[in-house]
């Protein structure tokens, strides 16, 4: 059989059956959902339900014994209580300082480390591994170690300061409202700067070597090459890194909790530790939930940018 068709119709021309409706498409793909079901189920139990319940509780006055059937609806009272409380302003400022300073310095140290480690040299791999250890160990371990380093009488940092003539007696880092927050921030930076380093090192590998060569031939000096070639290529990674650091710092609980418990006099209290204290210290779950909802809203804003930065290009990779 030999046929001569000879249609000269190009794409999109005749006979276009209507796009099937959503339910039909869901039904057609019903087997696909089986794959994601276990993951969704776990996420639903451990996330969707708590989110819902937190929002609900934030409108109630709750009994300290966790008998939630006795809770009383109070509308927005919990929110007003938080926003009007004396500590809210101070804690918010602490949170902002903690988050921004930790992120800024961790990123800066990480960037410096990544640029210095980018060049091949003997011992580079070992160096990278050593620098990453603080990121891998538990924040609990880090907190205890640094608490010991900062110890008011026998701490090695205070002793070193005396030895070097910077101070005439051991320094009380953690029991001083002026030094406590910076001291904790140093611990946090110690713990996480290598995360920024490793992200940016990976980013540096995407900088095309040829472009750097071309810039060199064109007469650009080291700084110009960094500024005009390397840095633009790092933009995407930097965005994601900074966002992830922000989120992590915003949510970090262990270091302030273990090292100072928010003290002295609330000088190292941040939102998270405050929420924990309100909930499990004072048993005021409703207020704590309202606090958590406020935190949600801030996180969702950051989350929006996170997902945007992360999924750039994902849709184009459809297979």
């Amino acid at each position: 059989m030999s046929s001569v068709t000879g249609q000269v119709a190009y794409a999109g021309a005749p006979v276009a059956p209507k796009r099937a409706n959503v339910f039909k498409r869901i039904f057609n793909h019903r087997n696909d959902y089986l794959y994601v079901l276990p993951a969704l189920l776990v996420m639903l139990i451990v996330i969707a339900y708590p989110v819902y319940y937190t929002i609900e509780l934030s409108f109630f006055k709750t009994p300290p014994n966790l008998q939630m059937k006795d809770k009383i609806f109070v509308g927005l009272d919990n929110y007003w209580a938080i926003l009007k409380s004396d500590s809210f302003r101070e804690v918010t400022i602490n949170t902002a300082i903690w988050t921004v300073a930790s992120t800024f310095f961790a990123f800066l140290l990480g960037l410096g480390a990544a640029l210095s480690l980018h060049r091949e040299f003997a011992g580079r791999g070992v160096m990278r591994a050593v620098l990453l250890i603080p990121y891998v160990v538990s924040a609990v371990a880090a907190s205890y170690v640094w608490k010991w380093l900062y110890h008011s009488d026998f701490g090695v940092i205070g002793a070193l300061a005396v030895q070097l003539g910077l101070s005439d007696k051991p320094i009380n880092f953690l029991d001083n409202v002026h030094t406590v927050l910076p001291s904790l921030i140093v611990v946090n930076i110690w713990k996480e700067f290598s995360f920024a380093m490793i992200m940016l090192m990976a980013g540096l590998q995407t900088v095309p070597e040829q472009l750097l060569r071309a810039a060199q031939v064109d007469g650009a000096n080291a700084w110009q090459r960094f500024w005009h070639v390397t840095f633009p290529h790092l933009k995407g990674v930097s965005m994601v890194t900074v966002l992830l650091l922000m989120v992590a710092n915003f949510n970090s609980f262990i270091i302030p909790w273990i090292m100072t418990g928010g003290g002295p006099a609330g000088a190292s209290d941040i939102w998270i530790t405050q929420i924990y204290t309100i909930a499990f210290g004072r048993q005021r779950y409703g207020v704590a939930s309202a606090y958590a909802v406020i935190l949600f809203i801030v996180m969702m804003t950051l989350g929006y940018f996170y997902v945007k930065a992360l999924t750039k290009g994902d849709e184009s990779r459809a297979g």
Partner: protein
Amino acid sequence: MTSIPASIPAEAVRPTATRSIDWWRWGGRVFLVFLLIFTVLPMAWMLLTSIKTQFAALQYPPQWWPAEPTLQNYTRLLDPSGSIGKEFLLYFWNSFYVSLATTILGVAVAVPAAYAFSRFRFPGRTFLFFAVLLRNMFPAVVFLVPLFLLMRWLGLVNTHGSLILTYLTFGLPLSIWLLKGFFDNIPIQLEQAARIDGATRFQAFLLIVMPLSSPGIIATSIFSFIGAWNEYVYAYTFLSKQETMTLPVGIQRFFTEFATDWPGLMAATFMMSVPVVVLFLVLQKYFVRALTEGAVKH
């Protein structure tokens, strides 16, 4: 073969070299030394303290180097016949058990989900994917109250089940994201070839895709394990019975009971860090990949 003669013209001059010292390189080196000191010093002091006696540790000015190094802090922790050793080893085992269970279950749940996100285009795919990713945004503390109530309702308070279930969720988003990246990189033609060669869709996945994505599975496993091993907040809240406690929480008991035993605490801290650091050093390549995958490509 003929060779073409070449000669340097007589009038050519050779300019004197103008290469100057590479300040950037030297700056980088100095900076790295500084970072190295910053990183290593606390760890070194932890180790030094852990081999001191209690008496030697509490001195001012400090003994920069222990006068009489001792391993007694370690032997005490690892001695199953002593009360401290028994407790410590129990915490250690609990941590290990919880972390391992979390890791295995996490992979079992994440692999099919990641595969679906990579290969199928079902309605709601994008939404669900982002919803899963957003888990990273929520601090543990925020969920404590409702989760605590939920666990109580499920009868899981003071069991490891509560921890495993909770830990699953913070491993999952990253695992799914990471594994999806791996699956995206495995050409779909390999599966198609397998299906034409007579495999079912599931066989094609099991026999062809799974072996190829083992680096991704290893990477996510390390991450889940380390995350679970280091977790503190939920363990601190869900577990109040001593025999169920994991290391990060258990160590606190040491601290409060033996409030001034800094060498003992440093030794315990060191022991607690050993498994994750070893795991990290051995599988560094995968760990780094897990950390950076997704954020860096495109």
